[in-house]
């Protein structure tokens, strides 16, 4: 009996010790962080921006690139394929697929932040970041919609496949998604954008130029409604991007400050956050500046004439025309920032410009044209050129309907104005990726030259309804149950 008792007590004692200490295994294995405060939410939303650029595939696929000829410049598979509108498979740096991944990574950050806000008890202080997360989520989806689904058909059918609109964090290894339609995608973007804009606060950020301030959000809205063809909203949002409607004092000072810079200063200064015209920047992992400095298919001898020849104003643009030895031209807008991950290796980044007042000004001009307010449109165009043409004299150098008709040989004033606006943007935003957006939005054909290996030049064209205008979504999207874009 005594023995049994002793054994029993021991077992009981053991049972007490054995009772699992739950907290014991709750210790974090490393210095990972938890989203448990407003600051942490803010930090998480700060990574809700795509950390890639779209320069390589948009610029190369657009008519901002030309074939310089066999044996000239560097040949790179990625550039060759995008120039001739072939699909690139794989997520190589600077590819469209890499950008797709970056947008969805940004969306995931936004979604995790929104979920944390929903689950946590952070009070009203968190609302500006909720707003930022919503706008950032809308932005990333819009960029995906521009590149990976058909352009929004203003007043027409938008039932073609959109892009998956993700609003919840993914929790399983391979989740399923659906693409929805272009219409549903745009509806979702609009909903997030409008809801988010109301909550934004410009005083919420330590480094405002890298966040959706109100001005940046309005710039996004003006671009978004331009795609949707809601012209008055374009104008209203564009107006909100500069203080007191002063575009002239807030757009890029090309013919003054930038002109007076040395080459090195310009290279460093163009994308610096102190440029007033720049509304939103992101740090984008990119090899654009190093790998595609002198591509065979790029900014060459013909394109440089945009700057070297007089334009619709009758004068030349002041932009710097630099080269690595003709015909390898560069705008020299991007200065690579090399982030060191180890002693001697790291990753190249660009401070990449997402929105400028120059763009919102031209968005407004285009909306004025569409609303029939041609005078106001012309005024905006002249504001735009006033800081780009040397010693701009409105009386002599101002763009007039006559000049437009003469320069572009277009008799329809509306068509002429649109052409003027798009051409101005083409030159201004060369090597900034905006041109492709205009091409898809306006359903413009893309016509480019191509040399055969033996040197015969021919022309290739991408028609307004060519399926290749939509970049291919990753092959791996099939795992999620998506259909690829038709070819």
């Amino acid at each position, binding site marked *: 009996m005594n023995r049994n008792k002793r054994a029993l007590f021991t077992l009981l004692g053991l049972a007490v*010790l*054995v009772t699992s200490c739950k907290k014991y295994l709750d210790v974090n294995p490393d210095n990972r962080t938890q989203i448990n405060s407003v600051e942490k939410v803010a930090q*998480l939303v700060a*990574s809700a921006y795509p950390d890639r650029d779209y320069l390589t595939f948009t610029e190369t696929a657009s008519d901002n690139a030309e074939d310089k000829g066999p044996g000239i410049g*560097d040949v790179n598979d990625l550039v060759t394929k995008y120039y001739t509108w072939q699909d690139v498979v*794989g997520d190589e740096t600077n590819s469209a697929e890499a950008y797709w991944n970056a947008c969805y990574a940004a969306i995931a950050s936004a979604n995790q932040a929104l979920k944390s806000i929903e689950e946590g008890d952070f009070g009203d202080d968190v609302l500006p970041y909720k707003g930022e997360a919503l706008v950032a989520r809308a932005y990333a989806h819009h960029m995906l919609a521009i590149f990976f689904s058909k352009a929004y058909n203003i007043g027409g059918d938008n039932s073609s496949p959109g892009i998956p609109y993700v609003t919840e964090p993914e929790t399983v290894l*391979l989740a399923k998604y659906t693409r929805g339609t272009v219409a549903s995608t745009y509806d979702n973007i609009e909903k997030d954008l409008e809801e988010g804009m109301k909550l934004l606060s410009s005083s919420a950020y330590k480094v405002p130029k*890298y966040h959706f301030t109100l001005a940046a959000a309005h710039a996004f809205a003006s671009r978004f409604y331009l795609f949707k063809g809601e012209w008055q909203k374009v104008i209203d949002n564009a107006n909100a991007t500069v203080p007191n409607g002063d575009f002239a004092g807030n757009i890029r000072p090309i013919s003054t400050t930038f002109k007076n810079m040395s080459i090195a200063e310009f290279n460093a200064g163009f994308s610096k956050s102190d440029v007033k015209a720049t509304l939103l920047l992101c740090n984008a*992992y990119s090899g654009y500046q190093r790998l595609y400095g002198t591509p065979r298919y790029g900014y060459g001898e013909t394109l440089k004439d945009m700057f070297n020849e007089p334009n619709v104003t009758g004068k030349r643009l002041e932009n710097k025309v630099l080269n690595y030895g003709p015909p390898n031209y560069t705008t020299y807008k991007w200065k690579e920032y090399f982030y060191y991950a180890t002693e001697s290796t790291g990753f190249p980044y660009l401070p990449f410009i997402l929105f400028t007042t120059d763009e919102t000004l031209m968005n407004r001009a285009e909306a004025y044209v569409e609303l029939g307010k041609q005078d106001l449109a012309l005024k905006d165009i002249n504001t735009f050129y006033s800081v780009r043409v040397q010693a701009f004299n409105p009386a002599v150098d101002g763009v007039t309907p006559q000049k437009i008709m003469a320069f572009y040989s277009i008799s329809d004033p509306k068509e002429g104005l649109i052409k003027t606006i798009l051409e101005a943007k083409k030159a201004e935003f060369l090597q900034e990726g905006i041109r492709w957006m205009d091409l898809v939005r306006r359903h413009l054909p893309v016509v480019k030259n191509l040399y055969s*290996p033996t040197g015969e030049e021919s022309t290739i064209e991408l028609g307004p309804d060519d399926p290749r205008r939509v970049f291919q979504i990753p092959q791996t999207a099939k795992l999620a149950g998506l259909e690829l874009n038709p070819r």
Partner: protein
Amino acid sequence: MLRLWQIFKKKYKIIGVCLGATLFFFVLPINKRLFVLTNKCNMEKKLTAWVKRAWLIVGFFLITLLASAQQYGAITGTVNNQRGEPLINITVTLKNVTEGTNTQHLTDSVGVFRIEKLNPNDTYSLTAEAIGYSPKTISGYKIKSGKNTNIIITLTEDHNVLTDIVITGYQDVQKKLFTGSSSTLSVDQVERAGLPDITKMLEGQFAGVSLQNVSGTFGAAPKLRIRGATSLSGDNKPLWVIDGIIVEDVVNISNEALSTGDLNTLLGSSVAGVNPSDIQDITILRDAAATALYGARAMNGVVVITTKKGMVTAKPRINYTGNFSTYIKPNYDNYDIMTSSDQMAVLMEVMNKGGYQMPGLINGDGGGVLYKMYQQIALYDSSSGQFGLRNDAATRNAFLNRYANANTDWFDILFKNSLIQEHNISVSSGTENYQTYVSTSYLKDDGMTLGNSVERFTGNFRNNFKIGKKLKGEILSTGSMRRQRAPGTENRVSEPVYGEYLRGFDINPYNFVLNTSRMITPYDQDGNLEYFRQNYAPFNIINELNTNYTQLNVLDFKVQGQLRYTIIPGLNYTLNGAYRFVKSESQTSILENSNKVMSYRAAKDANSIGNNENLYDDPDFPNELPVVVLPEGGFYNTETDNLKYYYFRQDLQYDKVFHNDHTISLYGSMEARSTDREHEHFDGIGYQYENGGLVNSNHLYFKRGQEEGKPYFGMQPGKDRFLAYAATGTYAYKEKYVVKGTVRYDGSNKMGHSTTARWLPTWNFSGRWNVDKENFWPENKVITSMILRGSYGLTANIGDATNSSAVYYNQISRRQYINDQETLTYISDLENSQLTWEKSKDLDIGMDLTMLDNRLNFTVDYYRKNIFDLLGTIQTSGIGGQFEKVGNYGRMSGRGIEFTLGGTAVKTRDFSWTPRFNMAINHNEITVLESNPSVWKGVSAEGGAVLHYPQRAIFSVKYAGLDHYFGYPLFYALDENNELTPNVNLQGDEVGFLKYEGPADPTLTGGFWNQFTYKHFQISGLIKFSAGNVLRLSPAFKSGYGDYNAMSRDVINRWTMPGDEKYTSVPAFIDGVSALQIIDATGSQVSAVYPYNLYNYSDERVVSGDYIKLSNVTFSYIFPERFCEVFKLTNAALSVVANNIWTIYSDKRLNGQDPEFFASGGVALPSSKQVTLSLKLGF
């Protein structure tokens, strides 16, 4: 008459005993008297004591009288082992040959037995038997009447007699109840005198254990695997257990990362602080049944180390071991390196073709003899109007002549025959209730090369005690201290674009010798150090090893304790606890006159300023030239790795035999482990070694660091928490059949916050059939015993993934300007609610035979592993926000067979031969995997994980010959067209078009150990072999050879003119003009760097990894007892040991390089050849 004589003798004896006893009792109080003087009031007690003593004396007299009144004789004997240590509880059987009767006796706690009342007329024989020893019989023994005969029986250890206990770390299981696959060897069989790391003891000795010496530097672990790899991404390392406590690594380095040569590999060995002399034996646990109690940690097998304990001895046993070793320097005969005159001839040829032009060389980042010549030519002394060297052919030739004839023997200059001394002293003593083992050792190794040295102290203190009959306990504390010096090194990084591994400022002496031309001279004509140019600054290897070095200090302290309480007979409760603390700090000193510091200051000419990456281009001043950020002082960088480890375990064990035939053993255990790691680094900038340690750092250094994302200090904590519950039950029937089952439940915090993923149950069952115990088994001498074993169970390992809930980390945004930077939180991994452990279902079938009258043992095991839920990378749609995810979907199968044959083949009075042969074959294949590694990983020396291939498979770019016109190498493109191309994209993942060469790990491993003993001489040798894998030769080919780098002798047979491609596969030297002609299929020009680097990764540069090595030869002389007695020694032995001396067979194309070693630079050095004199003394 006889009787009278006996009485006379008896009286003598009585007198003698009386005298002795009286003396004893009178001498004893002398000590006490001193005490009494200081304590006078104790007089009364003292008197009482004297009275008592007097009574005792009387009593003693009486007893002695009575005892000696008998007519019989007696034997008093001691049973010792070869080392003179007494053996306790040994059965001594006395056979009365005359009468044919047997009596059995046991030795006491000091190894003494006494047999009395023996009839002097009879003949006796004595047999002493002990487990682990050969029995010894002394026959024809006569007893003298009335006399006590003294006898010493020395037993010799017999390693082929199976011990009856298997130590699993958790439990000591009786061998007859053990159902798993394991092998145990005692230290004297595996001892490697002169090699201070105990991992070397595993080399070639255990079937199924593959050990690859990827680096011979002290502290670096070998690549160790038990039954092959089990994971695609995990560390694949077996678990180490010392005295029942799991050993945690200070830094967790995967098996593959062991060969990087990075500084942290010096902390790779979990057991570098263990003194080999403290080891008692080593057990390897292989299958699911053997490792059952380790559950979810045991997928890679377990190494169990048992250290020595104190013994019950009459007087303390003191043992000294001294090892004195020296290195054997390598020499050029074994290496494929051109002599200086041959290389100068090659240089001249290239120069005549327009290579090595003055402007290019004089401004480059590095340069050798030609750089030096041009520099002299350019040197103009304005006062004398003379140039440093006249620029005419004769003067130039005279200048170069010295270097052409130099033929520097870098091995002789950088390698040393230093003395390695190792001293170890241990003391063992104890009583029935308390035993102590104390040891300390000191190691001093002056290093195989300049810039390397090690010192290590260890201490070990182990106490075992017993309180009453029910409570036993143990306290064990061990500590070690290490001071090691190694060349300064940066971590290696992989550069897939060109296909290279890079390491900045690598000054590894071995790599230096392999890569540096013999034209380069360490000293100039005046005997001063001679400098060449590297990294835009002067460089001399001897200076560099003196001015750029790392001092590693490791302090490792562990205390562990055990309490065992017998609750009721058969039911035992055990409590184990341990605490371990390790602090390791590596201090890298880079002095002012080192190349690295001078490179930071190299801003003299425009070219250096433009290209030298150590200068700083301040973004705030875009128009300015780059500036120096280290104007004064050098670097003092520290890296710290700390470990804090707690271990707690309680077990309950119940053993009972019912009705003689039914044995039951039940065991339950609960375990908790907690490991905290810390890794810190600190970059000390501008430490002025020349000015007494002044620090005057330049603020620009920090500004740059902030802008480039290089913080000057950091700390990363790591916290592992682990809980486990296990239960096992064994049932045996009549010693014939044993069945056993185990369940275990493990929990870990490693996978992150999720209450479901962190827990995993594992199980296994096993059985054993002792066939020879069956009635039908014919008693025979050919196969004495036969055992069949089988086990099946689930084992597991926690993988690398930690995202059972979403993982967020912080980051400083990657933006150039400090005012643009902010703290971000980013999602490193999305939640994977399906995350689980990596698992394997293991089957093992084994057979143990003893043959030829117990002289030979044969063990064979066949196993299959069905490994599933392996973590693998998978490319997703990216829509969730993470394009590449890691999930449990991979599968791999493993199978193998292993056998060991050993025993005492020959044994006579003076001669014995003990051979032991083991061999294992292991194959594994990845059966499910979605992602392919990049081409670069596949062709690298470590190999990549590819579906339907072994865990790590080495591939090659397919070499297609040399270009007809220019002699550069061509390859087959990585697509179905098989076009010839000078370039293949290494960053792609089209591994399928590469040529499969073979696995990176050997598929067949084994060893053959032999020991011969003749009288006092003993010789043993270990041959180790390995086969089935392929090796990639170190990348030797470059598009351009400087006037500084070594060249392969193969270069003599290179392509020199069109048509040569038919006879040679050695690419041409590509001159500047020809380099422009390298074009690919699209017609674009390809940089010459690509084809020449690819050549290194082509099938031309792969060799077989098969080898046979003579790892160890030990020749010992054991001094005879007569000799020992003279010096009051209990034992003494002297050995000459040669380690690593001869590679009997390896692929010829390795040109003498060690097939186990990756010459990766940094701190990695090949295993040294060394000769050791080892002295062992016992007092």
